């Protein structure tokens, strides 16, 4: 992290214990917030957006105090912001840097784009198999259709 970026992080406010998700592309910040359902949390949450970033131009950041996300939740972020960074903070110190990794199966995260798919008609979980990480190519376990890139809609 560059010095400028470091300062930006501090601008948003340091946390004692919790999770910091950094380097989120600005246009993806609220999507990331949404898939983590942070609106349902009672923890202290700091959200910053359109912060200066050498790498991205502008970026977003989410800090959640006293919250340590499960790997499943973290991996969801990889769907929309694969290059985001996630730091686990304990006593103001970064104790773990987690790399985002798209899981091989996505359960109840993505909506099937095929209107004739059973998942769009039954009260059931969706399930997609990741066929290609780079192009975000997913195959629906049920209708077997393939979706990629912008066709992928988060539930």
């Amino acid at each position, binding site marked *: 992290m560059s010095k400028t970026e470091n300062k930006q992080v501090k601008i948003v406010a340091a946390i004692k214990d919790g999770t910091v998700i950094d380097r989120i592309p600005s246009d993806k910040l609220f999507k990331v917030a949404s898939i983590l359902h942070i609106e349902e949390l009672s923890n202290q949450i700091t959200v910053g957006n359109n912060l200066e970033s050498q790498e991205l131009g502008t970026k977003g950041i989410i800090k959640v105090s006293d919250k340590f996300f499960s790997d499943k939740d973290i991996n969801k972020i990889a769907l929309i912001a694969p290059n985001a960074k996630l730091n686990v903070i304990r006593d103001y110190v970064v104790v773990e840097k987690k790399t985002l990794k798209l899981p091989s199966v996505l359960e109840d995260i993505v909506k099937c784009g095929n209107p004739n798919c*059973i*998942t769009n008609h*039954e009260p059931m979980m969706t399930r997609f198999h990741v066929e290609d990480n780079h192009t975000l190519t997913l195959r629906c*376990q049920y*209708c*077997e259709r393939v979706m990629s890139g912008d066709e992928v809609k988060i539930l």
Partner: protein
Amino acid sequence: MSFLLNCLTNTKHPLSKPITQPAISIQLLSMQKSLVSITDYSKEEMLRILDYAAEFEKNPNQHILDGKVVATLFFEPSTRTRLSFETAVNRLGGRIIGFSDASTSSSSKGETLKDTIKMVSNYADLIVMRHPLEGAARYASEVAKVPVINAGDGSNQHPTQTLLDLYSIRKTQERLTDLNIYMVGDLKYGRTVHSLLMAMAHFKPTFHFIAPDELKMPNEYKQFCDEQNIPYFEHKELNENINEADILYMTRVQRERFTDLMEYEKVKNVYTLKSKMLENTRNNLRILHPLPRVTEIDYDVDDSEKAYYFDQAQNGLYVRQAVISCSLGLL
């Protein structure tokens, strides 16, 4: 008492002959499982089904389903497929429950598919289902306590059709490998051609796709061929292109698959096979069609010895007998 005991233990029909297990090179574990997609079966499992089907063709009346109840759940009507499955069960000595139209089932009252399947799997040993929504059979196989055989889920899969196609190809060509397979008509929406392509990929085929631009073979299947090093050629005309064919797989351009009916009107009569087109074709050529046909095969082709589509439908019976028996772990 002894009569009762005899009835309880004598589960075989007195006239039934035990089915002989075909000799195959690879010994497989029991195949008791659902069949939702053709890719659920390995190459060896497919060949095993074809071998059993050949045994059933020799002797279709085998009472190996005595005491078994098979549910045929047809959430959309499909008389041909339903009759084929139900004949298969009847010839195996099983009993059938079910419905042939969703309007006579609880789904018309708003019951979820899950609830219907849960309820039926309390009663039946096996579920055969047809559903208008894609993925319905996979979901049913996840919630059912008993194996599920997919008899068609929307435009997605119809694996027993694929197996009967393979059976017909092997029977008429006496092999499955190194064949020139020509697919004609609706290659975009036609699920039978997609599944057949996936299944034939095991047997070093050469594909020829004959379709108008609107109904071309989708890129994902062409990519699949590329990855598997399967040669394929695309044509727009149905003419002397077919002279090198071993199998000519005709399909119906289905009106219900078009959202734009103008597009349908443009292409519906583009490919009609006529008997004079067969003059210079190979002697071993056989014409397959999943049926029903509308205008894509002229009636004068029916008399040709190369027309095989009605025998093909009959083969479905034997293949379904094999699939049902294997899904129940009886073979």
